[in-house]
């Protein structure tokens, strides 16, 4: 018996007992997961960032009240009830972590990727971000760039607004959204 077989049996046991009790439906689990697989993900955050790049008024609102600004685009809800957007510039670089678990702005970025949830990321990003960014994410930052690490330890859910890449001045919003990556909105990449 492999570990995988045991894990599969443990999960089925819980689901089948909960369905038998009528607490959940036989259809419930798949329906919920499909929402996160098909509807919610970093494409939503990319829309927010692209809007901020083309609309200075929106950017100002986003940086002062991200929950309300994302709400203008119909983005918000579960695990993003209180959103905070922080801007990355030539002189300040923000990066987001959750050292205690895996808090992440779900309505903006979807559910977190494995590396974000990993013990290595949680342990090291707060203590040695310059080294982790350079060595593990290929993002060497100049000594003159101030690093701010945001540990999502309470209710605020953070994402970063990366700098708009050079040479995109005549791009429209939709094309801009296409270059915004999940990593750039967590602060482990620049564009």
């Amino acid at each position: 018996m492999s570990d995988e077989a045991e894990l599969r049996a443990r999960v089925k046991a819980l689901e089948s007992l909960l369905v038998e009790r009528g607490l959940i439906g036989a259809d419930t689990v798949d329906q919920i997961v499909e929402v996160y697989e098909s509807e919610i993900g970093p494409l939503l955050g990319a829309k927010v960032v692209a809007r901020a790049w083309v609309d200075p008024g929106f950017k100002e609102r986003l940086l002062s009240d991200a929950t309300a600004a994302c709400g203008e685009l119909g983005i918000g809800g579960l695990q993003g009830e209180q959103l905070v957007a922080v801007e990355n510039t030539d002189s300040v670089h923000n990066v987001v972590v959750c050292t205690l678990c895996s808090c992440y702005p779900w309505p903006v970025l979807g559910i977190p990727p494995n590396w974000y949830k990993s013990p290595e990321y949680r342990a090291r990003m707060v203590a040695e971000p310059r080294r982790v960014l350079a060595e593990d994410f290929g993002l060497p930052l100049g000594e003159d760039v101030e690093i701010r690490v945001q540990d999502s330890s309470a209710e605020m859910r953070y994402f970063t607004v990366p700098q708009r890449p050079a040479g995109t001045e005549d791009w429209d919003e939709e094309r801009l959204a296409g270059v915004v990556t999940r990593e750039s909105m967590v602060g482990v990449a620049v564009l």
Partner: protein
Amino acid sequence: MGDMDGPHDLGGAPGFGPVRFDPDDPLFSSDWERKVFGLTMATSTISLYNRDENRHARERMPVEEYRSTGYFEQWLVALETNLTELGVLDAAAVRERVAEFLDEPGREVRGKDRPELFELFRDTLEFGASLERPAAPPRFAVGSRVRAVRDAKPGHTRLPAYVRGHVGVVRRVDGAFVLPDTNAHHEGENPENTYNVGFSARDVWGKGDHEVLVDVWESYLEPAD
């Protein structure tokens, strides 16, 4: 740094190697992980336990077990712990059912559909489940110098060990929220103001030129001056 209270409190913990970064990692690496995620969302949608209980169930795992267990397996352990401890499911019935599925790995879960439950989840998804509550006016203001308390109470808390006893500066005053320390243990919501507090890495770890910003509840802080 101070003693770690639980296996989950990893900020600054020594001994970890490189982050295995893969931008193309799938969200779930197997079907059972996918199911664990869905089961957790389904059972929290119908409030079988609260979020802080869920976290605390993971944090009670022994350190060796926590560290040798994958992320979604930790979630599975929390589900088993909460559903049996809270009396939703009987532990012996769970064990028996596991044995049955091990004997018949091809057997699928069958039963009645409940489309109305998915509608309830849709509402939670859209409107969220904010834990913001009214509370007394904030004790600290932007710019206040504050010290994170040295000692954590036993049980669930959201004050990372690495800032305990250190002085930081309030960068932002956020709303008041349900206190996890009591909510995890059915001791009430006790809402408190929360703050974004900046700590210097050099002060916390003796090296580094960055600032670490931590979000904390008011009772985790005392005036530093």
